[in-house]
């Protein structure tokens, strides 16, 4: 599926999704509008399913993803449209457990466990208790009415649409990033070529079709950005003409020399910073590695460190030690804060 039709279908499902949310949001007079909402929601989900199944080849991961994300999205939508906040809380628990599945797909078992324990286990339960404690006899007016349902849902869905279209646009084409080895290779080749005295041989070495050295270097430098611009400026300045148009061997060699110097300079800048061993060791691949160089597993995806949870723990207690301490402080503050707030209650319940 190309980007165009992908976006069309996305817009369509966004539209139906909006209809679903808009009609289902509690309004003073709901009538049969909820039914319209459910139907629209089903249509939106079907369109999305079509999109996904036509884009990706069928495999177990896809199925799991679809199941989990179906429950996550449906659960979240039900949560925000539920008239009874208790039902909403249960739906939120559904969403949490389904996102837990997504977390597993993303190789984050520990986070999944923590997430379910904290949210489904603690937060939701506490809030359910809270709901019961506040002792409502019947539904509040607030639950049967939404604040600006139209504006809110329109804004939300437009924002969602722009996120999706930006993501679609950003992932559509591929570009290379600066590759150290490639650049080294090119520089070595060019330096060898500089020793050649025969014009045609030299030209064959550095210009010849795909082998055009300037293009290669530009690609290796990432295709765009300041270093590539420097090359372009340099080619205009030093090479008087482009290397491939000149017939003067001295001229070509001058141009090539300056090209080499740019490449070496780039490598020098890159190597000036010490590699941070500890972080790489604990938290996976060096972020500077281009995607092509990351260690892959059998199915071709980036491999996570073998023992995910172990490494996460190591990371937390080495690189992120300060953050862990801060989080502990934060919990202390929040606990005491909650106590302080509630202690202010007027002692009303005495009778």
């Amino acid at each position, binding site marked *: 599926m190309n980007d165009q039709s992908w976006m069309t279908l996305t817009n369509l499902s966004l539209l139906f999704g909006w209809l679903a949310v808009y009609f289902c949001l509690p309004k003073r007079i709901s009538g049969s509008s909820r039914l319209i909402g459910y139907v629209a929601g089903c249509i939106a989900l079907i369109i999305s399913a079509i999109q996904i199944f036509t884009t990706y080849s069928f495999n177990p991961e896809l199925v799991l993803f679809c199941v989990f994300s179906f429950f996550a999205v449906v659960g979240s939508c039900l949560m925000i449209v539920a008239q009874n906040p208790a039902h909403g809380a249960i739906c939120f628990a559904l969403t949490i457990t389904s996102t837990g599945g997504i977390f597993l797909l993303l190789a984050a078992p520990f*986070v999944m466990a923590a997430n379910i324990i904290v949210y489904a286990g603690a937060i939701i339960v506490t809030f359910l208790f809270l709901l019961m404690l506040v002792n409502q006899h019947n539904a509040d007016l*607030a639950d049967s009415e939404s604040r600006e349902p139209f504006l809110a849902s329109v804004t939300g869905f437009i924002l969602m649409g722009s996120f999706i279209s930006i993501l679609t646009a950003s992932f559509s084409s591929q570009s290379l990033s600066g590759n150290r080895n490639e650049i080294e290779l090119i520089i070595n080749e060019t330096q060898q070529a500089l020793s050649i005295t025969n014009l045609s041989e030299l030209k064959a070495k550095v210009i010849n079709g795909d082998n055009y050295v300037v293009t290669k270097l530009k690609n290796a430098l990432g295709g765009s950005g300041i270093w590539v611009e420097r090359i372009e400026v340099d080619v205009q300045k030093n090479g008087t003409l482009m290397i491939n148009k000149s017939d003067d061997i001295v001229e070509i060699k001058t141009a090539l020399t300056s090209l080499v110097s740019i490449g070496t300079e780039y490598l020098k800048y890159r190597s000036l910073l010490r590699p941070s061993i500890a972080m790489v060791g604990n938290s996976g691949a060096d972020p500077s590695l281009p995607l092509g160089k990351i260690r892959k597993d059998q199915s071709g995806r980036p491999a996570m460190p073998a023992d995910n949870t172990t490494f996460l723990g190591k*990371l937390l207690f080495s690189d992120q030690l300060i953050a862990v301490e801060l989080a502990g402080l934060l919990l202390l503050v929040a606990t005491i804060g909650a106590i302080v707030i509630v202690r202010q209650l007027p002692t009303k319940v005495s009778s």
Partner: protein
Amino acid sequence: MLDLKIYLILGAILFCIGLIGFVSRRNMITMFLSAELMLQGVAINFLAFSRFRGNLQGQSFVLFILSVAACEAAIALALIVILYRAKNSLDVSKWQDLREEDLEPNEDQEILLVDSYQVQPMPTLPVAGHRPAQEEDASHV
């Protein structure tokens, strides 16, 4: 095999649904849960990026988000309890005393009970340590 984009889109969808819920629902508990839903979307983003970058910093970030969410839940719980005590309602719209001087408060009209609208009973808990009181006593606790 799925790519990064699809996970990010899922994250964006959850985030925006949470956002809609936050803006449109008037029950404070639902509002808070919607805000947590936004954080779920963010967590999916983090994990997806973490997965596809092959490093664990994203995962650790999610753990910190979780702990912060727990802190916020504690505060929210306390705040909602006292807010409920003050106005006897979970409606966030009850709190609009602080606003620009010459604006009228946003009053709710009496609800029109249409057939389709049913009064849904809420589950309740008796006050701990007390005899379950009479209806009228319990109503203003």
